[in-house]
């Protein structure tokens, strides 16, 4: 396939189609509506399921239903809509059905604005839904990575029967760049054997998150935690840039992670030993590697479009081995390369 100029929201929607998306349920919200619009045409054209729901509450429960029936299903939204989905996310986690969610984060709290933000980090990695569970959270930094992660998201969701979120932001959804879409893949022919499709020739399948009795539920919780540990073991992903001899480590994900690659390039030109670790999974978080690097570098600078959310995970994993500083922009402001570069230089002087 050749490279084309693609808008982020259209790119992930079309990538999902080509990776075998069978059903999409969603509700319009900026800055991700182009995905829903694209799928409203494409899915119908291909004889697949598209439905504009009456709310995100309905959308997540439609996803839950279709996932229970064992099809490849997703929705996409932004903060306010994702918040409405929280109860459904928890049910999906408890029932262990695979489903994929894209959150193109926008400024908050409340209605906030429609500018890019990373302020849903806590919500996506730790708090979206009641009860003990973690989703797998992928964080793309370019449209190509967004496309590739759609395929990975379905694969991981189905492999572990779990929730996978893609943590994008408004700029990733709205910008255009050249990227390559995957070729059209055939739809899966067979539904998984746990799916609810009618009990012909077998005992009924039940999809539920209800386990009466404390000991029963505890056993389920322990099993879920084992699965999460396995995900942590196998699926932690990150990218490193110039970390071998780094004295200052930048940690940033998504759009800010990408900006930080420019910061590294610029600072290296200026002879500064700066490296970058860009988490590609926010949960599981690259704890072990950050811990190792924290022992090697003089200081860490975390940068986010938030007041410092991933910062808490970096502090936790660095375990006090080196100072951890933060530079963030809020309200939908995207930090510029120069801003982060000057923060980095300041830190170089401080630790010299």
């Amino acid at each position: 396939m050749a490279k084309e100029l693609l808008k982020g929201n259209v790119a992930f929607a079309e990538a999902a189609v080509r990776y075998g998306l069978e059903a999409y349920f969603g509700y319009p919200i900026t800055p991700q509506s182009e995905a829903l619009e694209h799928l409203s045409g494409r899915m119908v054209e291909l004889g697949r399921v598209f439905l504009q729901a009456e709310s995100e509450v309905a959308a997540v429960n439609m996803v839950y239903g279709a996932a229970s029936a064992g099809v490849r299903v997703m929705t996409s939204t932004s903060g306010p809509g994702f918040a409405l989905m929280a109860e459904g996310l928890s049910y999906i986690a408890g029932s262990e059905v695979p489903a994929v969610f894209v959150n193109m984060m926008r400024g908050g709290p409340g209605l906030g604005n429609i500018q890019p933000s990373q302020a849903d980090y806590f919500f996506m990695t730790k708090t979206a839904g009641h009860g003990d569970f973690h989703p797998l959270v992928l964080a793309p930094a370019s449209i190509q990575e967004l496309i590739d992660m759609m395929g990975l998201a379905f694969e991981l969701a189905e492999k572990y029967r779990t929730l996978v979120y893609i943590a994008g932001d408004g700029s990733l959804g709205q910008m255009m760049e050249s990227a390559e879409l995957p070729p059209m893949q055939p739809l899966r022919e067979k539904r998984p054997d746990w799916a609810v499709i009618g009990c012909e020739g077998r005992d009924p399948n039940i999809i539920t998150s209800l386990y009466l009795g404390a000991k029963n539920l505890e056993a389920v919780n322990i099993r879920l935690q084992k699965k999460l540990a396995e995900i942590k073991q196998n699926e932690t992903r990150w990218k490193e840039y110039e970390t071998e001899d780094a004295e200052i480590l930048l940690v940033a994900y998504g759009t800010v992670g990408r900006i930080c690659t420019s910061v590294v390039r610029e600072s290296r030109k200026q002879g500064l030993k700066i490296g970058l670790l860009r988490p590609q999974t926010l949960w599981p978080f690259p704890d072990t590697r950050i811990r190792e690097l924290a022992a090697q570098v003089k200081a860490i600078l975390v940068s986010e479009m938030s007041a410092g959310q991933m910062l808490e995970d970096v502090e936790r994993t660095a375990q006090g081995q080196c100072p951890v500083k933060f530079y963030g922009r809020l309200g939908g402001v995207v930090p510029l390369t120069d801003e982060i570069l000057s923060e980095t230089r300041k830190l170089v002087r401080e630790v010299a």
Partner: protein
Amino acid sequence: MSIEVKIPDEMELVYEYPDALTEVSSHYCPGCTHGIVHRLVAEVIDELGIREKTIGVAPVGCAVLAYKYIKTDFVEAAHGRALAMATGIKRVNPDKIVFTYQGDGDLAAIGTAETVHAANRGELLTTVFINNAIYGMTGGQMAPTTLPGMITTSSPTGRDVITAGYPIKMSEILAQTTGAVYITRESATNLGAIRKTKKAIKRAFMAQIAGLGYACVEVVSTCCTNWNMDPWEAMKWAEENMTEYFPLGTFKMTDEVKALQVR
């Protein structure tokens, strides 16, 4: 626990467990009408021969464990979201039969939006809606269908319509939606009514099988435990009081649904 019954040779079997009803004793309170309606659903599923192609959606409410009793594939939805979940299931299984079984808190309070929109889209779904005028599972609080003046654990001096508003008439509302093809209110409070209810449930399933549109059978029911009545008294009370505010009858039936031969 399965129940072993040995029938003497000289006796004829005239009444038995439907195939679609699992042989276990239920968790429902003695005298609860959920059990009656579960049985009706199971009988209808058997008579239509659809057990192996039916998917049930259980609510949050006393019927949360419906899947332990009705022997089809089942999911357990979040409170009020049964029809959204059922929509997801049906859209990707268009050749299967999907039904929801919901209480009044589930369908008419927390899930009103999902209910009205599923009906209005004309989803090919069947709903069995148990209206017992109370939140049974959580201990007898006021429901959207609690009658004016009725005492509950959260309306201790009786439902005050000035502050709590009036009971919601869901069948009347659903009958206004374009996508609904069959909306009826029946009852489970006497034998004649139960027979009619079964016929209505059967028609509602047949409407789905025929691809006609959304169908909902509301069943005026009792909750003797939370009404603080014995079962018989509760039946009488429902007949005298509930059906006055919630008149029985069919609120919408298209010609195609009317033409279905329901036996």
